[in-house]
């Protein structure tokens, strides 16, 4: 509770400054905080304005979250095994790593036109973009995590009677886990960035489409409302992920020693 109180002054300061700036006419293109607050309430409960956005939060949030989690989990399901494979087998690495190395620097935004041409407008294109964006952080962190498992731990496991076949599950994965999870956290954060990009065209719902459409009709208060909910949703999924991981790990240390 004390920690929570410490977090309050900064947002209050920003809100006060923002409010004053609008009041004094310094900010003319941005609505006052109170107006945004009313829009937040209307967007969530739909009791104030009865317009196209009223009470639509859950629809948009569910659409965005579905795309984020879909793309993220597909990425994790492919990136983790591939990272392990490349770290463990030099031949596979020679075969695949140069190609991945060339694909990696291409920003997700550069993929948008191609993905839209090939897969067309719609939800699946957004999911594919999130997949592309989430894949590399998980892949790279898994690869490095597995490669950096200290040789000493492998020797220790060998002399305690661990066979080569058991080594992956008994030692390499547990040792690389903190790094894999770090990659997942980065990827999930990135997935919320990409979902906004992916929803700018061709989808009728999602928080990204809300702020894009609101710009076209100059509803600045709706844009800010959308931004607030994207922030909250990102925060919430990150918390769910880290809590879930912590539960899965018991109280083992998250940092490699």
């Amino acid at each position, binding site marked *: 509770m004390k920690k929570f109180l410490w977090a309050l002054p900064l947002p209050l300061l920003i809100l006060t400054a923002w409010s004053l700036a609008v009041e004094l006419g310094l900010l003319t293109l941005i609505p006052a905080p109170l107006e945004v607050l009313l829009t937040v309430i209307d967007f969530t409960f739909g009791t104030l304005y009865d317009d196209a956005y009223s009470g639509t939060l859950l629809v948009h949030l569910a659409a965005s979250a579905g795309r984020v989690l879909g793309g993220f989990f597909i990425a994790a399901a492919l990136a983790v095994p591939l990272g392990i494979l490349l770290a463990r087998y030099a031949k596979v690495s020679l075969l695949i790593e140069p190609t991945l190395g060339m694909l990696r620097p291409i920003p997700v935004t550069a993929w948008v036109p191609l993905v839209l041409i090939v897969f067309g407008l719609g939800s699946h294109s957004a999911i594919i973009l999130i997949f592309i964006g989430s894949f590399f952080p998980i892949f790279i962190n898994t690869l490095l995590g597995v490669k950096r498992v*200290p040789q*000493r*731990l492998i*020797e*220790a*496991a*060998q*002399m*305690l*009677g*661990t066979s080569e076949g*058991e080594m992956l599950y*008994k*030692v390499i994965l*547990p*040792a690389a*886990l903190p790094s894999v999870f770090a990659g997942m956290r980065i990827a999930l954060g990135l997935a919320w960035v990409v979902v906004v990009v992916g929803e700018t065209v061709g989808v009728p719902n999602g928080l990204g489409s809300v702020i894009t459409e609101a710009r076209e009709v100059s509803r600045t208060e709706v844009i800010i409302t959308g931004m607030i909910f994207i922030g909250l949703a990102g925060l919430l999924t990150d918390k769910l992920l880290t809590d879930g991981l912590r539960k899965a*790990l018991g109280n*083992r*240390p998250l*940092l*490699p*020693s």
Partner: protein
Amino acid sequence: MAEGAFRLETPPSEASRRAGPAGVELSGVGKKYGSGTRVTEALRGVELTMPDGEFVSLIGASGCGKSTLLRIVAGFERATSGVVTVRGKEVARPGPDRGVVFQDYGLFPWLTVAGNVAYGPTQRRIAKPDVDRIVDRFVKIVGLDRFRDCYPHQLSGGMQQRVAIARVLANDPAVLLMDEPFGALDSLTRQTLQEELIKVWQALRPTVILVTHSVEEAVFLSDRVVVMGGGPNHGVPGHVTKIVPIDLAHPRDVTAPAFNDLKRELLDAIHHPAS
């Protein structure tokens, strides 16, 4: 640490007392690295026979191949010539009959103290209740009962090394291989652990090979000290230059004249191998 911890109900290494071939036998052991014209010869012609339960230290200047020799006995590296046998069985790969204690501990950071000690017995498919009993016993022997649920990063270096020792002892190894196990510890912790190591060794009687830089440590602990010399930097492969028996009763007095005579003899052998 409680003295009572060492009163063992059953002789632990029953297997190691059984009649049979000598504990550890090294014959003509050599090691070359590289290939073609870039060959370095790290070790040549090492001969050593250790009966079961003997405590031998390997000592010598850096690069003389003592750690390499230990790693060959452990099975981490293969000798390029000669044979190493443990209880008559040729060493080909690492195994739970040869427990290794590393200078940097090598504990599994995701397992608790108890989890680390249980690892070996669990790998050997020992039933859970028996594993629990083994863990209780060895955690107690190294004096860490109160820390059994701690993770390695929560422990001091000396405590981590105790865990590492308990972890290999829990496998009832025929041979205990220690590679400068106390090298990273402060001198007080080092002394305590040396004394406790002797007690554990007297109680369980594993065959021990200890690599050390410290002449005093070697004289304090061992039945015999094997002095090694040479190494790639000296233009000759690493080899055994002298073997000095230490006929002093435990516990040894490091200030006794006999102790110092042996130290002097060993220092001389290390620094003037030709004489």
